[in-house]
């Protein structure tokens, strides 16, 4: 059996591509088409978690006209208040970086590793 010339095979491939509407790409060069062909995944990603309206969100939406009592949130705020009264609240925000070091020095903590 005689060997078929490569040019003939290429012609055959090109013809096949034109018949089946595929792109003729003999050197298998990357065209990036797969990024356009793939389906968009965003819409289904967004729907993963069931929609949920929290009490805080609802109160914010109502515009302060009337609010639902949230026992958990009220308890949290009460705890924060109680901690503040015992002097265990969040520390004050430092005005500058130096202020923090001064504060540390006030406690007798050296920052330079001595």
């Amino acid at each position: 059996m005689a060997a078929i010339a490569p040019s003939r095979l290429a012609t055959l491939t090109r013809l096949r591509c034109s018949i089946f509407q595929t792109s003729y790409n003999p050197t298998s060069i990357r065209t990036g088409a797969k990024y356009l062909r793939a389906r968009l995944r965003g819409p289904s990603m967004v729907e993963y978690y069931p929609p949920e309206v929290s009490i805080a969100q609802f109160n914010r939406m109502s515009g302060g006209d009337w609010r639902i009592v949230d026992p958990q949130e009220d308890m949290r705020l009460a705890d924060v208040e109680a901690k503040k009264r015992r002097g265990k609240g969040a520390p004050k925000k430092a005005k500058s970086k130096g202020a923090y070091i001064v504060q540390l020095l006030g406690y007798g903590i050296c920052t330079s590793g001595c």
Partner: protein
Amino acid sequence: MPNVRVLRDIKARNGVNANEILRRAYLYVARNQNLPPQVRYQAQLQLNTFGKYTRPTTVKNRCAESGRGRGIMSEFGLCRYQFRLKALAGEIPGVKKASW
């Protein structure tokens, strides 16, 4: 109330959804070997300017009930323990405990 990891995941999901088409367009240009290298390079630089929460790989399926990140049964979107609790309570249609 979802925990902070779930909130972060929701943020990532919304970011991916909002930027997906633009990112795909840049990806197409950057990966296309028919285009001149300079154009591809510019597209890649543009891709790098997108934020962390616009990449689909930052999205992780978490338990819809407890926010747990491991042991998720993807058909139900629940972690194995929440799945068990709900299945035993009869809240998942078509699921019942096997016994033989």
